[in-house]
């Protein structure tokens, strides 16, 4: 059980560093979507099902959709 939690937290930190490093903005948005999804799983492990449902529905679906629509109207690559 501890091993699963440790692996998930390591994956979340690697994904956040990937959102920092990528120059293609669509890849950075998908990395931030992975961070939100793993945070929703961790909320379930911390015995909070209401917050897990809210974070999965809002953080992983709606925020990603809003970002991709915004990138479609501006530039795709950084600078």
């Amino acid at each position, binding site marked *: 059980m501890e091993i699963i939690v440790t692996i998930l937290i390591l994956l979340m*930190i690697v994904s956040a560093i990937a959102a*920092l490093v990528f120059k293609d903005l669509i890849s950075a948005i998908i990395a931030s979507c992975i*961070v939100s999804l793993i945070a929703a799983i961790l*909320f379930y492990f*911390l*015995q909070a099902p209401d*917050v897990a449902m809210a*974070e999965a529905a*809002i*953080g992983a679906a709606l925020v990603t959709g809003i970002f991709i629509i915004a990138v479609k109207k501006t530039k795709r690559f950084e600078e």
Partner: protein
Amino acid sequence: MNFLSENIYYIGAFSLIFIGLYILLVKKNLIKVIIGFSILDTGIYLFLITIGYIADGTAPIFSKSGLKADRMVDPVPQALVLTAIVIGVAVLALAVSLAVRLYGHYGTLNLRKIKEQRW
């Protein structure tokens, strides 16, 4: 090793907060700064829920009729985080719309170049 296995949740939450703060300080593209805001928010929610966790506790719902009431996780931080998630998405939508209007006016999303063109 014992320190690591007990506080792994705190380390994860604070790493997200620091990565979000670093993106806010260093990056130049406006949409990347807004992605940094979102990562910073997720780190703070994780930290708040970790404070309310009680070892060997269960979710605060009386689903079966004989559930004991002294082994439940604290419900107050969960209510606060529920409010904070919704407010976070509202602020994010407004920031993104401002970024789209800025691109239409200046033609670039580089923060150093937008600061140089004053009035």
